């Protein structure tokens, strides 16, 4: 009998601290699978954000750096300029990447920095207990939008892939989800490609992953996956927003 599926090699044995059913864990695994598949564990440096995934530095076997809130793309840039032949990725939440770190995100994309960004859009600040994120949906109840996000005073949710797609420099931008088996398979491909691009020197690649936060959404893990399907994906359509290689 052959192994069809097992924990990827580039993950450590430290158990995740994530809540039951939190899909951060799935995305970690997909990243590790890409690292394994490309055989780059030894020359990869990962950047953990401030957010629920802050402790990602304990979970990946490659060298890891913990960045300050929102600045992972700048940290990644610093690493990449020092180690241009290595593989550098960041793993960031929506508060981290699309709120406090928006300037770094867009500027790094603009520079076409040859790094890979895994962007976890769960429409909430998980780590701090469920405040509104820049990507929280219209009407979404959170700790800081207790009456539902009101676009009049709290603005509209931001679509990062669409925003970045207007820039000339990025090589690859794709939005995926991990709420179902089919979506996980697509996500796996996209994440793999985002790493492969870097190995091949193609430039800035970002994969936005629509993820769940059962705890702060107040939903069971299963319901949270449904919420992604029914509420998130309609607002955040999946697909490829830029693929320079293929003329997109």
């Amino acid at each position, binding site marked *: 009998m052959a192994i069809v599926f097992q924990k990827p090699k580039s993950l450590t044995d430290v158990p995740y601290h994530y809540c039951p059913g939190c899909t951060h864990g799935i995305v970690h695994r997909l990243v590790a699978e890409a690292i394994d598949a490309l055989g780059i564990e030894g020359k990869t*440096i990962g950047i953990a954000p401030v957010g629920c995934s802050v402790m990602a530095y304990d979970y*990946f076997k*490659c060298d*890891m*750096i913990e960045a300050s809130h929102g*600045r992972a793309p700048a940290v990644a840039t*610093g690493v990449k*300029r020092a180690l241009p032949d290595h593989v550098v990725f960041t793993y960031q939440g929506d508060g981290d990447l699309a709120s406090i770190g928006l300037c770094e995100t867009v500027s790094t994309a603009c520079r076409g920095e040859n790094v890979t960004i895994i962007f976890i859009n769960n429409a909430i600040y998980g780590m701090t207990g469920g405040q509104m994120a820049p990507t929280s949906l219209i009407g979404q109840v959170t700790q800081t939008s207790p009456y539902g996000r009101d676009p009049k005073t709290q603005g509209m949710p931001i679509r990062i892939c669409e925003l970045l797609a207007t820039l000339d420099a990025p090589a690859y931008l794709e939005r995926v989800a991990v709420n179902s088996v089919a979506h996980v398979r697509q996500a796996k491909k996209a994440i793999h490609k985002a790493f492969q691009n870097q190995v091949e020197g193609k430039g800035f690649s970002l994969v936005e992953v629509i993820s769940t936060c059962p705890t702060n959404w107040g939903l069971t893990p299963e319901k949270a996956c449904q919420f992604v399907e029914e509420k998130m994906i309609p607002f955040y359509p999946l697909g490829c927003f830029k693929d320079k290689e293929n003329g997109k």
Partner: protein
Amino acid sequence: MSEKVLMKGNEAIAEAAIRCGCRHYFGYPITPQTEIAAYMSKRMPKIDGTFLQAESEIAAINMVYGCAATGRRAMTSSSSPGISLKAEGMSYLAGADLPALIVNVQRGGPGLGGIQPSQSDYFFMTRGPGHGDFHIIVLAPATVQEMADMTRLAFELGEKYRMPAMLLADGTMGQMMEPVVLPEDTVDPATIPATKPWATTGTEMKRAHNIVNSLYLKPDELEKTNYERFARYAKLEAEECRWEEYLMDDAEVCVVSVGITARVAKNAIVAARKEGIKVGMIRPITLFPFPKAALAKAAAKVKGFLTVELNMGQMNEDVKLAINCAKPVNMCNRVGGMIPSADEVLAAIRKEAK
């Protein structure tokens, strides 16, 4: 030995950094230190180094953080308002025990303030430039030669003690030209990371992963890192204090000053000596660690101290603490970009000598 060349202080820093094996500069323009960036943008591309104009001071310090994590000699430079924006980044560098060079060519504040020379970030830089219990090494050059020499010293001390180091200059130091002998270009940048086993350079599958981090959710663990860091500060103070003494042998008044004001004060001291006033100077070269012992020793002999500063009285407090308030510590100061004249300092010395 290298020959003497004529350079601006800002340029001397840049060239010295390169000769010390620094190949990674990340910065954002701001007067009066933009010459550092301008110089780097010309040189770095020619030597396979990185000059990167970051999107902001915050991005710059975080690029330095990432680059320093790989064990490279990385640096950034700015002036007062831009340094405020680096506060969180400096705290992270300190928390992760990363050496890196930060240059602050100070201008008047607060707020947008002005662009003329100042020493008003003294407290901010020496007391902990950001949240949390931490310090960075702070060096105070007073000549263009020292701008170059201390660039090397900052890299070396930073690496020895695993902490960020700052060149804290005033605008004059950055803008003036003087003859300078640059450090020899003897450091091979490629050899530096190897001396840093903690660096995140890729495991190459040969070792467990390195983690550069400052998060410790368990307070006892965080406390341990704090104590360990302060033990390094204590060692730093014991071993690395630097200062210059000038005419202190028979001095009854001790001027304490750094940077441009130390030079103005020197003129005033020469004039005062002509008047028969027994005055000397201790010029701290390391501001953190502050040369407390030297001042305490002087306190035993002199009648009083006079700090000459471009701020409302900041180093003044350090002198008081260093000498355990044993003697009066007065002050001669100007702020907002103004610089006291030698005559003003002389007048203050005369008063002190009475």
